[in-house]
């Protein structure tokens, strides 16, 4: 199940294509970085929706030319305390200009959702707990921020200087 950045819940239309699978009948497939690197011509020419799953220690610079090939990039939090994907998200958005869907997967918990959205994630792979515990509320816990961020939200410097006569 997916949580959107606006707190809405929806089903996941994407399926993960295994590294050894050729196709799986789905119109929207994600591939691992390893699979993408094998430069599979059929895959690259495919007119299915393509998504990319990245490990949280993946280098990003080399992906720059390919980024607009992907409607979805999935980043990973192997443990919620492993914060490497936050930097990956920031870089993908701010430095490499990625505009597609950026999804958080792995150990995605309620109390990190707002950090994730501010880093540029706009969808979150969650379980049934997200409904039971109303995780959408997490997005509105703060409306004051001390840093600029990828979700275009307000931050105090801009607000203070805006108030300045």
């Amino acid at each position, binding site marked *: 199940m997916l949580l959107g950045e606006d707190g809405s819940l929806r089903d996941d239309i994407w399926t993960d294509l295994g590294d050894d699978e050729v196709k799986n009948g789905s119109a929207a497939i994600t591939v691992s970085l390893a699979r993408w690197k094998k430069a599979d011509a059929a895959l690259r020419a495919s007119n299915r929706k393509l998504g990319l799953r990245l490990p949280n220690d993946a280098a990003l610079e080399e992906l720059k030319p390919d980024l607009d090939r992907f409607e979805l990039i999935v980043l990973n939090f192997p443990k919620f305390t492993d914060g490497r994907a*936050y930097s990956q998200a920031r870089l993908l958005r701010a430095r490499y200009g990625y505009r597609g869907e950026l999804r958080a997967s792995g150990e995605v918990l309620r109390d990190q959702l707002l950090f994730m959205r501010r880093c540029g994630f706009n969808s979150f792979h969650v379980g049934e707990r997200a409904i039971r515990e109303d995780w959408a509320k997490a997005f509105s816990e703060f409306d004051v921020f001390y840093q600029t961020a990828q979700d275009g939200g307000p931050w105090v410097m801009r607000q203070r200087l805006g108030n300045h006569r």
Partner: protein
Amino acid sequence: MYRYDDFDHRFVDERVAQYRDQVRRRLAGQLSEDEFRPLRLMNGLYLQLHAYMLRIAIPYGVLNSAKLRKLAHVARRYDRGFGHFTTRQNLQLHWIKLEDTPDILAELASVEMHAIQTSGNSFRNITTDPFAGVAADEIEDPRPYAEIIRQWSTLHPEFSFLPRKFKIAVSASAEDRAAVKMHDLGLYLRRNEKGETGFEVLVGGGLGRTPLLAHSIKPFVARRDLFSYLEAVLRVYNRYGRRDNLYKSRIKILVQSLGPAKFAAEVEAEWRATDRDAVALPDNYIAEIASGFELPDYDRSPADEQALEQAIADNPAFARWAKHNVTAHKVPGHAVVTISLKPVGETPGDCSADQMDLVADLADELSFGEIRVAYEQNLVLPNVRRDRLFGLWQRLDAAGLGSSNIGLASDIICCPGMDYCSLATARSIPVAQRLARHLAGREDEIGRFSIKISGCINACGHHHLGNIGILGVDKNGEEVYQITLGGDAGNGAAIGQIIGPAVKSDDVTGAIDRLIAAYEKLRQGEERFPETYRRVGAAPFKEALYAAR
């Protein structure tokens, strides 16, 4: 001092509400302890030996009387009527109940205080010189920059789950009174040839299992580029710092393994690729934050120096206090006073609620309401007129706050140790108490001397930086103490060297006594211990320590 605007108030209130809900969910069983632990740590709440411990933030060590009175109130109402000032300028309370913490944080928020990020794997308290703003040797007041960095680092979405904690210190004077070189990231405020303000950036300091001093990686970052450069350092750390081994996760390990030059190059490359304008720190914003730190309206009429000299001549106890606890102020007729929280035989750094209230009153009367916390675990009144010093001392002395030992052997830095801390491997406080009792009688002859004691390898007592450092360890269920020599904080920062086998608890006082006696015999002129140690080496001290008695 800095006063919250509407944004700051709103933020801290939202934080309290968020935390209150997190506690509710924990107590209702919706959050496991593993899920909750990082969240409570990000609000400064540890679980220690006897209870929860709350570490309240005192940003860069600056308090006003209202805040100090609130700390006294919280200590009385929710704890056992006393608190412990730490080596990062914060306050710890040892007997806290989880269920009280949302209310405690709400009370703190009402006086513009919090416990945000005093623990956890993110930015910790930004620390600075306790004499900031009033020191005679200062280039520029570092406090506005400390405040700016504090805000920038608060709930930073990219850097809230770093490999490990991240400690930043700022210093802006010739003398480093903030121990900058032992920090993950240190900033020395500098002016370039054009007179523009910027910072020398040092990275990779830290104590603990692998004590290392920070390396200078960039001689000058213009203040406009402060955020973008900090981001570059943190991003390199967040992406490449080790996460496989808790004891190898600090940035110092990354700097050491890459080598400082390569690390600096990585940061530089990351920085050059950044859109620096997007996070530029403009002069007018710095000025706006700095306006909160304008100096008070000092009474610049001449102080009655003659009355002060007479009081010194008439009263040897006051004379001693005036000699050790009073420092020059940049405004004539004024002084910076350090209040010792190291009464001989007591717990170093502890302060009762009543004492806090008294210091708050004294601050209102004599220091424009301002108090500082030094990382040496003492308090500072930064703005006292010299002709009020005698009256101040009398009132401090009556309250057990008149110890005249700043910078002397009984001004011991000491962590809570195994009497309180679940990480500890030995007790530290009783060792400090016995040592202070033993040395106090001759500490004037010994002269300036730093003894620092840690109850475990995590080194919260900064033992690596002590002229004599003492580390308590467990050997087959017995408390034994490892001694290091030659450490120093500040400009001449040095990591102490282990002198030899650990010493039993009962033998520590005698061992330190023999070491100090050896120093007194060997020193030349005004040499402090680190200079003597560098000159003569470890051998004479080893001999003194382990010689048959």
